[in-house]
């Protein structure tokens, strides 16, 4: 019975597909799975939007929206209707084709990332051998859409926002990959299913999640930082900072195209939370062995929503980072730390089981954190100003 609940979606799909002739069945399975993704994650997006507004409100000593429906629960519906019925303005001098394609490209690429996430036991859309690489390939393509949006608007502020956004995303792409490489190294496979299976092992009822190891914890913190920057989320939201650049690269977008960008951003956040959960938090495995009766997909979505809550918490707490502070942070602190994390993970692997590897790895990481925090984040001493004029 518990197994049935765990596999309920797989069994449902098989039952529905059983009504179709044999040659249509593989296609039908894929179609149903894709439809499920396209329904679930935008639904989660609606919940996240509401959660964010009410959560941020409470953190700022105010109530969030509470007029539309009981406790404001129908606010996403109102937002969706508003986006759909707003006039779609395209500036006269804008590049119409690229202007139209940018949000479309973003949404397509962002949804592709879900194809490899193991949402539950046996619930991965495509079980790829190089799943993680596919995910990062899709993530890298979002930068192109951001650039297309900024450039096609023929608006200096949009272009500036797009340049900043792309620079930020490229800078943080490297630490994101490096912190995942540590996980891949220890697991020995790029397949996300294999990574989850490696973490689904229990000792004394506690799981072998990578976050519970020193290198995994450091890796998770770096991954979370890089993920926040990748999705242009506060405190790294300078490209879309409302007080600096109006709305950055999507200034000239209105109505449904803006809603698509918004959807793309939040779906990207959910996606990268899902990846973080898979890599470091054990994916769909339960935190304690005794809780194994709860269906696996509930654990996955629980971890994703927990990550979203942390994102919202960070947004409500931290002020925005300036562009140069952002870049300094990426190249002078996060990147060296993730490279060190790789070495520590290797040391962990080759030291064998025992208490010694815990002590050594933790000590190295803590000392490196403190030292790099002092050295890498030292403030520049400003000398006399020099000017460089554009030729």
């Amino acid at each position, binding site marked *: 019975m518990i197994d049935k609940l765990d596999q309920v979606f797989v069994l449902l799909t098989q039952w529905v597909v059983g009504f179709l002739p044999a040659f249509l069945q593989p296609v039908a399975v894929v179609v149903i799975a894709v439809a499920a993704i396209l329904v679930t994650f935008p639904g989660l997006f609606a919940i996240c939007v509401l959660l964010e507004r009410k959560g941020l409100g409470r953190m700022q000593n105010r109530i969030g929206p509470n007029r539309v429906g009981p406790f404001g629960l129908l606010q996403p519906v109102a937002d969706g209707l508003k986006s759909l019925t707003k006039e779609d303005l395209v500036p006269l001098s804008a590049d119409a084709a690229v202007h139209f394609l940018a949000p479309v490209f973003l949404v397509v690429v962002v949804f592709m990332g879900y194809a490899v996430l193991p949402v539950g036991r046996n619930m991965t859309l495509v079980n790829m051998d190089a799943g993680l690489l596919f995910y*990062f390939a899709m993530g890298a393509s979002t930068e192109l859409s951001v650039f297309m949006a900024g450039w096609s608007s023929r608006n200096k502020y949009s272009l500036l926002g797009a340049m900043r956004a792309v620079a930020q995303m490229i800078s943080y*792409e490297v630490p994101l990959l490096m912190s995942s490489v540590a996980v891949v190294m220890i697991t*020995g496979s790029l397949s996300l299913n294999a990574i989850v299976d490696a973490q689904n092992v229990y000792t004394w009822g506690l799981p072998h999640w990578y976050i519970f190891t020193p290198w995994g914890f450091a890796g998770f913190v770096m991954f979370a930082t890089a993920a926040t920057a990748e999705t242009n989320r506060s405190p790294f939201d300078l490209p879309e900072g409302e007080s600096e650049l109006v709305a950055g690269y999507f200034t000239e977008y209105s109505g449904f195209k803006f809603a698509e960008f918004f959807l793309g951003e939040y779906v990207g956040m959910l996606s990268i939370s899902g990846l973080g959960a898979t890599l470091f938090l054990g994916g769909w495995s339960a935190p304690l062995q005794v809780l194994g009766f709860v269906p696996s997909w509930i654990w996955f979505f629980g971890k994703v929503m927990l990550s979203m809550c942390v994102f919202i918490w960070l947004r409500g707490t931290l002020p925005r980072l300036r562009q140069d502070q952002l870049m300094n942070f990426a190249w002078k602190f996060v990147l060296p730390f993730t490279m060190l994390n790789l070495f520590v993970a290797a040391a962990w692997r080759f030291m064998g089981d025992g208490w010694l590897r815990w002590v050594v790895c933790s000590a190295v990481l803590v000392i490196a954190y403190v030292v790099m925090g002092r050295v890498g984040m030292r403030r520049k001493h400003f000398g006399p100003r020099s000017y460089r004029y554009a030729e």
Partner: protein
Amino acid sequence: MNFAFYLISGLAVAGALAAVLLKNTVHCALALTVAFAGIAMLFLQLGAQFAGFAQILVYIGAVAILVVFAILLTRGSETPRDGVYSKFPLTGLAIAAAVFAVLGWAVLNSASALPGAETTSAAPTVTVMDIGNALMSRYVLPLEIVALLLTAALIGAVIVAMHEKEEAN
């Protein structure tokens, strides 16, 4: 040769043609991105997962961005006043023919690439682990040379940027 191959290669060729024929330089760069995507899909169709995804990650995610940045930071984003066609068409044609001949000779000499010669079921599926092993054992020298080259490029870029700052001072 199945329908998918023709479709994907059509897309890649169309993207490449658009990249040389379009007037607006940034449009050309985006069409080049389509060509890259086409090549990646060809890799995936052949079953080379690692090569396909690495193509997307590196070419579309980094090289295309580099190309558009280069266009934007120089004055290439203005549409050219003269035509986009070269002033020396015959020389261009000769060079293109020479490159095609070299590529054709390389393709024809690798026997397994010929259609109908050997079916794909005989080709072994290469996993990422195999690629990693090969890189570390058989191809470690090319790997180290490429790493050296990349380091040199990185240092060169830093020196060029620093040199500019010193000049300004």
